[in-house]
Structures are given as structure tokens and as C-alpha cells.
């Protein structure tokens, strides 16, 4: 099943080649997330309203290889914005994907930008 996770690689803002127009901002819950489909990828996008920031990461839980992270609760741990996996509450930094309460591999993160009330996610291909 690890073949799935190989598809997800962090994209740095400077490496964005494609800005994918995902969905209007208002379909994302306040301080919550939803899942976006891009090619054969599932990307969790979070509207961190309290920080006035948007984040994106893989939807795949690295622990159990299920497509669930977009359904997790967000917030912060010691100031680091994070998402908690709904299956076993593993938490991941939304900034760099690091697992904050364990030593799971980091998840892939993606840049997000908002233009004209639309959410765009950045990909390198």
C-alpha cells in the first residue's frame, strides 16, 4: 500500500508549476477542512480562519493509509498549526507536515493561494 504514499511529495512555493483552481472558498468550513481531487491525488485543504491562512496537505493518513485527514480537527499544538487524524488522533504540522505526537513520517504539504474567492492549490506537475 506504500505505493499510494509515494505519490505525495511536498511542494515548496518556489517550485509551483501549476496553480490548480480547486473550489470556491465558501465550500470550506470555518476553521476546518475538506478534500480536493487533483488528477489522481486527494488533497486536504484547510481554512484556518482564526489565522486567516489556508493550508493543504495529503488526505492520506500515513499511519493507516486511509483517505481521512481532511475530516480531522485543526488547531495548534504549542503554537504550531496542526491537523489531528480522525482515526487515532495523530497530529501533523500543517506547516511542514511533521508528526507532532509521534515519529510517523511527515506528510506532504502544498502551497495554497486565494484569488477572487477561489482556492488554488500549487503543484509541481
Amino acid at each position, binding site marked *: 500500500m*506504500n505505493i499510494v504514499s509515494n505519490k505525495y511529495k511536498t511542494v515548496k512555493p518556489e517550485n509551483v508549476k501549476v496553480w490548480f483552481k480547486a473550489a470556491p472558498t465558501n465550500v470550506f*468550513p470555518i*476553521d476546518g477542512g475538506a478534500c*480536493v*481531487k487533483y488528477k489522481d491525488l486527494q488533497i486536504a485543504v484547510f481554512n484556518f480562519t482564526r489565522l486567516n491562512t489556508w493550508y493543504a496537505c495529503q488526505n492520506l493518513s500515513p499511519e493507516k493509509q*486511509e*483517505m481521512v485527514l481532511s475530516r*480531522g480537527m485543526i488547531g495548534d499544538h504549542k503554537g504550531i498549526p496542526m491537523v489531528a487524524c480522525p482515526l487515532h488522533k495523530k*497530529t501533523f504540522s500543517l506547516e511542514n507536515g511533521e508528526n507532532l505526537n509521534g515519529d510517523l513520517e511527515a506528510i506532504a504539504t502544498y502551497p495554497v493561494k486565494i484569488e477572487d474567492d477561489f482556492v488554488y492549490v500549487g503543484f509541481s506537475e
Partner: protein
Amino acid sequence: MKTIIVVGNGMVGYKFCEKFVAKKDSEEYKIVVFGEEPRPAYDRVHLSEYFKNQDAKALEMAPAEWYAENNIDLIVGERVTDIHRSTKIITTAKDRELSYDYLVLATGSSAFVPPIKGVEKEGVFVYRTIEDLEGMLEYAAKIKKTKPNAKAAVLGGGLLGLEAGKAVMDMGLEPHIVEFAPKLMPRQLDSRSSQVLQLKLESIGLNIHLSKATNQILGDKAITGMEFGEDDVLDVDMLIISAGIRPRDELAKTCDLEMGVRGGIVVDNKMQTSDPNIYAIGEIALYNQMIYGLVAPGYDMAGIVVDQILGDSKSLMAEEIDMSTKLKLIGVDVASFGEPFMPASKGHSIIFENKTQHLYKRINVSLDGKKLLGGILVGDASDYSMLHQIYLNGMAIPEDPAQLILPATEGGGSFGDVMDLPDEAQICSCENVTKGQICSTIESGESKDLADVVSCTKAGTGCGGCKPMVKDLTEATLKSLGIEVKDSICEHFDLNRQDLYKIIQVKGYKTFNEVLDNHGNGGHGCELCKPVVASLMASINADTANKEYAIQDSNDRFLANIQRNGTYSVVPRVPGGEITPDKLIALGEIAKKYDLYTKVTGGVRIDLFGATLNQLPLIWKDLIDHGFESGHAYGKSLRTVKTCVGSTWCRYGMDESVSFGIELENRYRGIRAPHKIKGGVSGCIRECAEARGKDFGLIAVEGGWNLYLGGNGGATPRHAELFAEQIDNETVIKYIDRYLMLYMRTAKPLQRTAAWQERLEGGIDYLKEVIIEDKLGIAEDLENEMQTLVNKFECEWTQAINDPEMMKRFNHFVNSDEEDDNLVFVPLREQKMPEKWS
């Protein structure tokens, strides 16, 4: 660079490596470890945990990578066969040759198998390694197939034998303990305490046979029984031998090291054998003419050798070795320390015994009444840590030493505060951690809570017996520094749940952000505080989970239970378990239509598994059209009120349990609480509804209902306590209203009623005063609050499917109608299940 070869990668061999690499001069040495077992060292002390989940990794002392990271060559699955002392070379079973500067023998022991005729038969096991346990599990499964009530015996009623007895019970076999001596645990207990233990163990189903010498094992190929004497036979289908240990000293024989007459390699207080370049540690070492079958002395020996090799020649093994033990056998506390039994010429004994409660306590006091020499505790070992410390440190004892063991209600019990211990007092004997070390890691600011203390000092990471004391010490030290030990819900609030309840109620907050901005610590919330606030809003304002769905726990957010592969299960409410044939057919048809795996739950409802996010609203629309409503199986709220059929059909029934059960379930449905709530109603004392295993349970008796409160199943099962007798329906509702509301106001997050009630000062009597006698004058408030919640009930699924805005969240993707393409189902007995986790 010098080479140290460690033979044996067991607990002590591993500990040697750990202690060695922690020293700063260790880089000048190369360590090579040989282990005969196929895996790296694991925690043999907790071997029985392997029965729970067969997870060998969880028992590892350290993963294989740890050895590599620390520059240790670990070679597992390879036995060392010879030592050539003159050339300082060892050879292995795979003909490898390696030379050493120092050799550390940590070959441990193997289980001793007495030479009884027939021990080689199939179905006879020992209890020492993971492979032994695997063999037992496989064999037990095999015999249970042909013989559902198969029996298994354990030969040996000592510490380990009783642990094996528990394993036998867990494997679902009828357990028998066969002991040669006339009492259980002959080495740790005196006859009276042994009898108390025996009574207790028998009461939970262990069959105990004392003074039995086994002549032979019966059976053709496989064991069928044990014969003790003529006409004295016990039929058994499996046998676990636990008759002591034998040091694995065969290597010493190959090279003429000095050995004891009954085995073991002789060492001095440097742990040196008769060859100064060879050390022996752990269960192989014969020190003071004794083999010590416990980890703590083994760990000490490992530390001594580390020091000796690195040149600290003053580090020596203590003269006397503490063999005190405390353990929980099948839920029974047993402890013995110091000299558990001793002749009257050496001191006085004080004994407290209560056979009805399976309690026995004995302490031995010096003739002058000033020193504690040892003791035994059975049934309740909560005093153990303190008594053990008093004994180890030779502390002064009260004038009337009986106070040390008298139950608190009889005027004793309060003697001995952890903070009175001297700094050198050894709190954790496994890791050799003193009180001073624990206090100073807190005082220096290095440790801020119990978890920090454990990771900084390693206290409590061995046998775990010292944990209660480490916790007490940590709390007392924090307190002495003026640091409050808070039970705040998480890093975002300095408040506990009860405080937040009051604040939200008084201020009338409606959103999470209002609460966080006004009372939080400036952060943004997390997976701990969000659901707590959500649940409080629901308890106070009767909000459904639809209102602010992004702060709900995942299950509440989607009004369904998330399952292993991220799909959901659906449980409609079936109040009291009563269902019409038409509704049953409707459920079946809906399950078929959406291809859902269908199962009756433990709460006797019907659970439909495998629904995708996109399917949830469609399924619910169908269910609601057929007259169903949400069952709140996903919420921390009322689940079911389980009922027996009662007087409407049952010939024993005293009252209509179903009718009353339905009324109660409909009354409390949808109400959110700190944790889930379950009810039960039985029509007579035969208790077919298992009502006493529920948060609230009713049993119909002559003249009304008996009400039981605070029971639960789950990980720590507890029977509900009898609260009121022979009360009518109206009074039942009044009491349950008040009880649940009080629980909702004051419990901690995720605390079931059982745990809440147990920790409530004054317990059930206090509850009676508040609920029945209204001592706090809040009974009416509690009832009114509950009535408001009851009146405001609304089915949240009906609410959701009627609101297009709310429906938006039930899509896997926001930009596509496709479903999750990662889902894989495999067939299972004419239905389906998610593919296994890899």
C-alpha cells in the same frame, strides 16, 4: 579499540548495552552481542501481554536499529557454543570465531522441566519465550475446536505458575493449578496469606490442587491427563510447566569456569567469574550462592560490570539483595518484602486478616518494636510502596506499628508521607532511581510532569511496580514548589471541564471562538478542547452536532461512526430493542440497496457498515422515510436502554421492562454527556438485560424498581451500585434526571459514570444525599435543566437532510462527485469487509 562480547541478548544483556553506551568513555570499545532467540531482546517480565495482541514489537526493549545507531553489532539467532579462554576466542553454532578482550555472559535461565515420565508429550509447554506462547496459543485453538470445554493445568503454584494460570483462563480453557507444596507461592507467602489468596483465586474460577506430586503425564501422543498416585488422576488437555528455572551455564562447562553445585556461574561482588576477563550477570550469575530470578538485581549487576570494565573498581554489588515483589495476579494484589516470615525469636508479627474480603496483611517488627523487618500483603497492596520504603531505609515506625496496616477507617492508614523519605531512598529498584533524583529533576525545571519525570529518570520503565509512588512523589514535589497540578482540559485552557461548564452556562456563549477568545490561553484550540466545548454547548443549550460541525469529533461531524478504512457505519435508534417486522424488513432492504455489511451490535441494535461519506445522506433519507431516527451511536450521548422482554411475555416478569425501557430511551435520546451512557431494564431479578452493567439499570422487584447507578462494561468493567429500592416509575425518572445532570455538570472529559462515581468523594452515599435528600438544594435545578433538554430534542439526521447547506459536508471531494478511490473491500461470509491494514 577493545572488543566486548556479550553472550545472550535477554533483558539483562540488553541493559548492559544500554548502560554501557550511555557512558562517555564507551567509544573506545566495540560491543558485539550474540542472542540465540530469533529477535532482539524483549521484556520478558511483561511476556503475558503478548496474549493480548500478539504484538512482539511492542515488547522489544529497543528496536534492532537502536543497536546499529549505537555502534553495537547485534547478531540474533546464533548461539555461542564454545569459549577458548587461553586464546580469548569464542565460537558459535554457525562456526563463526571472534576474539574478545572482555566477555560478558548473560545467558539467563531456561524453564526447569522436572524429569517426569511423559513430559515430552504433545501439549506440554514451558512459559519463557515468545515462541512458547505462540505454541500455546496455536495448541489451545486446536484443542478448543474439538473440545469446547477443554482443560489446561499449570504445574507449579509459584509466582510464574499463577501468571500462567491467568494465561490459561484468557485462552478460554478451564484452569487448574497443581502445586507440590501444601500452599501457593510457598516462597513468598505464609500459610494464612496463601489460604486467603487461594480462596480469592478459587472464587474467580481457578481450580487449585495442593500437595500433589506428579508421577506421570498420561496420553498416547498428546497429553490427556496427569497422574499423581494410584486412582488420583486429573484429566487435562494441555499442561504448562512452571516449576522453577535452570541457569543456562552450559558454556561455563566448555571452559572450566567455576560453577555452583546446583548450576550457575560463580561470581564475586565485581561480577567477575573465576576468569578475570569474563563476567556473568543476570539469571546465570551465582552470587552469594544464589541465582536471583528477578530483573532488578540483574540490572544492578549489568551496571556493576559497565563500571568495572570502564575502570571504576569501587563499584561493587550490594551485600544484600532485595527480593521484595509486588504483583497483580488475575486482579489480586500480592506483595511480599524483606523477611516475609520469620521465627518468633527474631521479632513480632502483626497480622490483619479478613477472609470475607480476601484481605491479609502481615508485618514483622523487630523485638524492640523500632524497625520493620518485612511483611506480606494479599488482596490490597496499596500500602506496599510505603512499607517497602520504610523497610529499605530503616525508617522509624509508629509506636503502635499496627497503624501501618490498619484500614484507614480504624484510625490508621495515614502514616507515612512520600516526602518524609530520605533523599537516598530508592524508589525504582529496576532502574535504580532515588527519591532525590526524582525531586531534583522537577526542582531543576527539567521535568514538568509525570511523563517528563519518567523519561528523564527512567523510573517506572522496568517492572512498573513503583509507578504509584513516582506519581505521588511527582505531585507532592510539584505542589511543594507551588506548582498547581491542574486537571485543565488541554494547553489552550487553564480550566477544567466543570469550570468551563459553569462559564458557558452563565455567560451564555454560543460558539467555540467566543469561549476560546474570552477564556483561552491565546491559542487556536485542538482536538482535545474542541469536542469538549462542543459537548458542553450541547449539554447546556441542547445544540445538535450540526451547529458548529468543524469543532466536533469526527464521528459527530458526520453523524456516523468512522470505521477502519474511513467509511462509516449507520445505526438507527430502536428504542428498547423493540422493532416491528416491517421496520426490520426496511432495514434489510436499505442495507441491501447500499451493499452494507450488517451486524447486530452489543447494544442489540442493527449496525450497517461500509457507507461512504457520499452515501450517508442517501441512506438516512431512506431510513427516515421508513420512520427511523438517529441512534446517536456516534455521539458521547445515550446509546441504548437494553431491555428484557419483561412481564408482557415472560412468565417470571414482575413489570413491563420493555415499556419502561422505551420511555427512558426516548427521554434521554440525543443528550450529550462527557461520555456515552447506556441503560438497562430487567423485568425480574434474573436480570436478562444485564442492567447492572449499565450507567443506569433497573430491576423490577415486588413493589417497584430497584435502581442501580454507575456500572459499565468496556476496558474496566464495573457493576452498578444499588442506589434506591422499590421505587415507582416517576421516582425512577426523577432520580435518573438528577443523577445524569449532576454527572454532566461535574465529570471530566471522557469519564464514564463509573469512573466519576468511584472518584467522587463520599461515593454512592454522597450521591444519595444530593439526589434523594437534596442536601445541596439543587435537585430542582437539575430536573429543570434535564427537562429542557428533553423538550428540545431534535433528530439531527432529519435536521441535516432537510437543509441543503448542511448536506454539503457529506461529499468526499468538494470539487467532484466521485467517491474515495482508495477504498478496497474483500468478501467475508457472504458480506464484505475492508481490506486488512498492512
